[in-house]
């Protein structure tokens, strides 16, 4: 397998329960983070209240313009994109006439499942169409493309919980193939009652703050947010003297082909995705230069067991952490948010404690870091596992700065 030419990451934007921009998020991660609370935007008649990591301040983006009446997921996406482009010193004027693509992962952002509309449909048979109109206006990739006049490929990836990671990997391929000069790639998702009830029905949700890899882990907490990376071709960032924050060196994706909602016990898909990504990044023969791994680490029994086994086998001794204890599981946004954290930690040369992990599980051969840890090496991995047996892995290297 050939190695991939590196794709530059020149800008990052991120918001989630841990913070409304990347700096706030990283400050929060390194100072203990936040705790989940009962959802404030919706209620449920479950006898148990399951806490969530919610963003309490609705982004003001969109104002009173045409994008004011769009779904929260799309607003999160726009907010993160604005921060990322600002960080990359790009704007609509500079991007005009350039080959700009948009590749965004989501789950709720592309699902026509408005409960109020459907209740009204069932009871009255004639609900107003506002909710459907809003849904049709809120495709996250299209919303960003319209905001910045992007004329290139526009793609919303709906690969469940690996959507954000896949979107970044696919967006990078557009740069490599010469299809785009710039790609805005990432993920966005909002909390909603449908996913809240759905995950509880699967019995993989914890009624307490989640504890990835801990012996007492009982499941995940849902979260929400968005993160965007600005990916650029070498010719483009060099021409404008922009120093990359990181280089995307490898992407691997593979499917367990095992079960709709459970990972393959032998971790076959994850192993294949790691093998592909490391081969593309030319680091498959040695783990010495890998500083750390930001794992999926949801806090469910099955996910954490499989990840621990695979990491112990393929990436022995490399420090790893889960950031779900700071953000909750943000579904289609998770891979992008964790990619943003991965780059920021690589820049800082340290990773925070894996929140929620206290007592090792004797069943797990590898466990995450328990305190803030300095890391060495120029590479870092971020990985996602998803419904459908999807596994996606991205590898970042330090930027030229």
């Amino acid at each position, binding site marked *: 397998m050939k190695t991939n030419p590196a794709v530059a990451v020149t800008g990052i934007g991120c918001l989630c329960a841990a913070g409304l921009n990347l700096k706030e998020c990283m400050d929060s991660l390194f100072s203990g983070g936040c705790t989940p609370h009962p959802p404030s935007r919706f209620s449920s008649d479950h006898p148990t209240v399951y806490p969530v990591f919610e963003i309490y301040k609705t982004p003001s983006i969109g104002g009173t313009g045409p994008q004011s009446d769009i779904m929260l997921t799309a607003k999160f996406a726009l907010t993160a994109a604005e921060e990322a482009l600002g960080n990359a010193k790009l704007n609509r004027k500079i991007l005009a006439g350039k080959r700009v693509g948009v590749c965004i992962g989501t789950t709720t952002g592309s699902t026509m*499942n408005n*409960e109020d509309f459907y209740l009204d*449909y069932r009871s009255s048979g004639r609900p107003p169409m506002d909710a459907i109109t809003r849904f049709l206006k809120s495709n996250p990739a299209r919303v960003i493309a319209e905001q910045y006049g992007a004329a290139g490929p526009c793609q919303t990836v709906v690969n469940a919980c690996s959507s954000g990671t896949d979107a970044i990997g696919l967006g990078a391929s557009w740069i490599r*193939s010469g*299809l785009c000069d710039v790609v805005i790639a990432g993920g966005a998702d909002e909390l909603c009652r449908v996913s809240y009830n*759905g995950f509880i*029905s699967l*019995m993989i949700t914890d009624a307490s703050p989640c504890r990835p890899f801990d012996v007492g882990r009982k499941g995940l907490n849902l979260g929400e947010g968005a993160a965007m990376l600005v990916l650029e071709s070498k010719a483009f960032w060099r021409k404008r003297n922009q120093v990359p924050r990181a280089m995307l060196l490898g992407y691997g994706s593979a499917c367990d*082909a095992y079960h709709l909602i459970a990972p393959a016990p032998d971790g076959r898909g994850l192993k294949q995705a790691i093998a592909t990504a490391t081969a593309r990044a030319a680091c498959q023969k040695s783990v010495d230069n890998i500083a750390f791994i930001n794992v999926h680490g949801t806090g469910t029994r099955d996910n954490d067991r499989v990840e621990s086994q695979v990491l112990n086998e393929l990436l022995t001794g490399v420090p790893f952490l889960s950031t779900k204890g700071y953000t909750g599981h943000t579904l289609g946004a998770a891979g992008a948010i964790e990619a943003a954290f991965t780059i920021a930690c690589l820049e800082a040369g340290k990773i925070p404690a894996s929140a929620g992990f206290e007592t090792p599980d004797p069943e797990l051969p590898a466990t995450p870091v328990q305190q803030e840890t300095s890391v060495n090496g120029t590479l870092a991995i971020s990985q996602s596992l998803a419904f459908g047996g999807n596994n996606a892995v991205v590898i970042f290297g330090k930027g030229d700065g």
Partner: protein
Amino acid sequence: MRIAVQGIGVAGGFGCGADQLRRALFPGEITPQNILFEAESNNHKFPAYLCDTSRLAEFVNKRALQRVDHFSRMAVLASILALEDAGMLQEDHQNFAVVVASGYGATRTTFSFLDSVIDDGDACASPMLFSNSVHNAAAAHISILLKANGPNVTVSQFEMSVPSALLAACQWLQEKDVDGVIFGGVDEYCNVLGYSWQRFFGRDHKADMKPLEFENQSAIAGEGAAFFLLTPDNGDKPKYGFIADVQIGHVEISAPKITENSLLILGADGHKLSGIHYARYTPPENQAAIYSPLYGSIPIGPAFDLAIAALSIREGRIFAASRGAGENSGLNIVAKEQALNARSIGCLKFSCSGEFGLIKLVGE
């Protein structure tokens, strides 16, 4: 770009399999049989082209299909037919990717999940319906049933889902990550969709689609799936030619770049908001055909057009545009079947807001 098309599998209002699609292309021989009146919301009947997946029983046992919904069944059936058509159904698919496009995902199951919550309470939400309602459920079922361990991705970009998803398929093949890609599109009809159509487009549903009458709204909802087995160009002549280019853009920024003398298969499907773009951007000097009256108005319509383009490449002829598609469009419409004469074929789709996708297929 040079991606080989080795097999096609289709299921829709016209029937099931490439042969039934082919027969439907000959006016007078087969009329689409599945134009049914399904939904009855508010005492109003709604026409739709529906898809029968009963042929799936020939390939997959009942037990394996127990928890697979209609949306995924359509996709699984079409993907199996594509592999069978390519003579690859019994081969090892371990290093195959699965790429699925869908405008709206599993809508029936999505609303059935809401039914479980509304009828029985939050605590009785159905886990099976929830897990099948995620957009990538169809892709997952394909991977599981066909044991395809390569990358697996689902793209949802409304009418642009097919050209957008095709980019991912082509990328994986060009970078030689996989031996083949099971690629296709799937969308289903549901009563909420029917209701939404009534509200957005009025209740005066025409009996026939007239997609070439661009100023009129005549769309009839469809459902179905169209899948392909794609491989890298290995030097042999593939059964259905090569995908040579995929363009995606927006008319406010640039018009589609249409190859001179190519045949255009227009994705116009009776929506007047997108019809204006076909009228404006289809060069009158290019011959054009339109087949949406065979499969209905469906976000993944370009996948059906790509299947028809593949059949045209294989047989070296252009099928006449669907009878009754409309008149007076001002375009150079293919009225009678004729030789393709080694021309390329462009499948052109516009969304209502002006996005476009253009997939170019060549024989050599």
